[in-house]
């Protein structure tokens, strides 16, 4: 079911406001994720429900082990939910095969990780370009230039990850994640390995991507200050969402 949003027209006459229905870009319905440790079943997610609208920026917070990362991986199709529905742009990941989830991830989802996870053998340019290659459209120089310029990477493209600072590496990772214009950008504690200054830079980048380009962002964070960059903060505990309020 979609969410009803009221949009007021600019008509000078006394007409009824026009109502439009906006479907969530991400819809998580009663999702469970169970891990098996020998004979013991460990529930990482216990009936999670979450809707994210297109262009929304949502922060997910919670203590360690509450299931934040599991939620992110299930949304991104890297892990399969044990029960429930995960609809990404209308596609239910739970019913898909591994190959189908991979295909969806290729075109609709971008990932940014805490540990950057750049390919060490490739330069910054190579790390970004390989995402385009995997996407199947080949190297798009115009899009490449736009993204790298926006993220301030022009002078660092020929450097390999070992030759870059943490902040630079994370910006390369963000560029890689958004180069194919994904529907959703999923960020797993992207500032976890950065100092305060670089954290602010990265968070500001994510905020600009959201506000200026309308990129939907779902980010996991431990950092309460990071929530100021987001529209909505969702709190998790013990595998469930306990509340989801708009950011201050």
């Amino acid at each position, binding site marked *: 079911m979609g969410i009803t949003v009221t949009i007021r027209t600019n008509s000078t006459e006394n007409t009824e406001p026009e109502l439009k229905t906006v479907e969530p870009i991400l819809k998580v319905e009663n999702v469970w994720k169970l891990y098996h440790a020998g004979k013991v079943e460990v529930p990482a997610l216990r009936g999670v429900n979450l809707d994210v609208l297109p262009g929304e920026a949502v922060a997910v917070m919670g203590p360690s082990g509450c299931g934040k990362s599991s939620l992110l*991986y299930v949304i*991104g199709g*890297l*892990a399969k939910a044990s029960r429930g529905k995960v609809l990404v742009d209308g596609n239910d990941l739970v019913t898909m095969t591994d*190959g189908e989830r*991979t*295909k*969806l*991830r*290729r*075109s609709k*989802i971008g*990932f940014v*990780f805490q540990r950057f*996870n*750049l*390919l*060490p*053998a*490739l330069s910054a340019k*190579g790390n970004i*370009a*390989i*995402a*385009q*290659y*995997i*996407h199947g459209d080949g*190297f798009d120089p115009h899009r490449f230039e736009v993204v790298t310029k926006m993220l301030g990477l022009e002078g660092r493209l020929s450097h390999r990850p070992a030759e870059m600072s943490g902040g630079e590496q994370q910006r390369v990772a963000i560029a*890689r994640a958004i180069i194919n214009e994904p529907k959703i950008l999923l960020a797993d504690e992207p500032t976890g390995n950065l100092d305060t200054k670089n954290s602010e830079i990265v968070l500001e980048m994510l905020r600009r991507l959201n506000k200026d380009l309308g990129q939907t962002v779902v980010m996991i964070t431990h950092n309460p200050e990071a929530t100021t960059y987001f529209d909505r903060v969702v709190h998790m505990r013990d595998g469930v969402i306990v509340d989801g309020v708009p950011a201050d």
Partner: protein
Amino acid sequence: MMGQFVWRNLFHRPVRTLIGVLAIAVEVMLVITIVGLTSGMLQETAKRIEGIGADIMVQPNSSTMFIGFTGAPMPIKIADKIQELKYVASVSPALLQFNTSGGVETIWGIDPVSFRQVSNGFVLLEGRDMQGPDDMLIDDWQAKAKHVKLGDTYPIFNHDWKVVGIVEHGKAGRIFVPISTLGALVGAHDKATIFLVKCTRPDHTDDVMAEIKELLPTNKVQPVKEYMSLMTSTNIPALQTFIHAMIALAVSIGLLVIFLSMYTTVLERTRDIGVLKSLGASNGLIVRALLAETTLLCLLGIFAGMGLSYAVRAGFLKLFPTLSILITPEWMIKAGLIAIIGALVGASYPALQATRKDAVEALAYD
């Protein structure tokens, strides 16, 4: 992009890549060298027989392709009977004796006069032809291998021979002594291992062969050209088995090294594989990337192996000048193909393992 990815991955760990290349190079070199050695020895032997200039060989029925192992069961007087036949220009008996002391060599006991008639004589590089009972002729390769000079004493069969001439290689054997002296020494007085027959014209060969077969129905009579064509490894089953065994050994080495190399590569790159999966890379792409890396490594190894083969050959010839190692384009290609197939087989399991890695676990791998 894939090419760049594969190339850079290969050189991200240069020592491991170098070891993989070396393993393939050794594998390729082993195949080329072993086949080259067997083919070369056979071909060189056949060429020396051809180099005599005879048209027909007459041997005992029990003889094999390895003339030196036949012994000396034929009476030397058979030569006179063959000489009387129509279209026979000349006949030369030869007594071949295998010597294993101080090396492995075949001694040719010849009658200098008749041998000269059949073969048009030796090309003397130094000294003179045999005249006395203890004279010895030795070819230039053998002289170089054994560091023998003109006038030296060369002991064989507990008898001191005097090196009176050094001849050009490529005719019959490498060491020549008078047949009468050799026969007396080895207990084969007036015996011969082989009769070499020269026809008045080469196109009389079949006629002469027919006559000899009628004269000596229990003997093996064959044209020299036929002997030449038989001197290949495919006609010697035991040699083929040996070659196949050595190829299998070489391939096993290459396969195991590549397997280990790619297995550790996949293990080391677990997180990278997780990253690729998070970017939406299919299993097929991951397998293709790993196999492409293996193929590239293999190609480098193949070229290195070809170069190494030539280097090994040069080294062998310097140490053992009488050896012949035949390196042919056919076997270079075969060795390359064997190496690639072995490497791809070795890399396929690690590549499949890579696709089976759980993406989340792979991303968390340290």
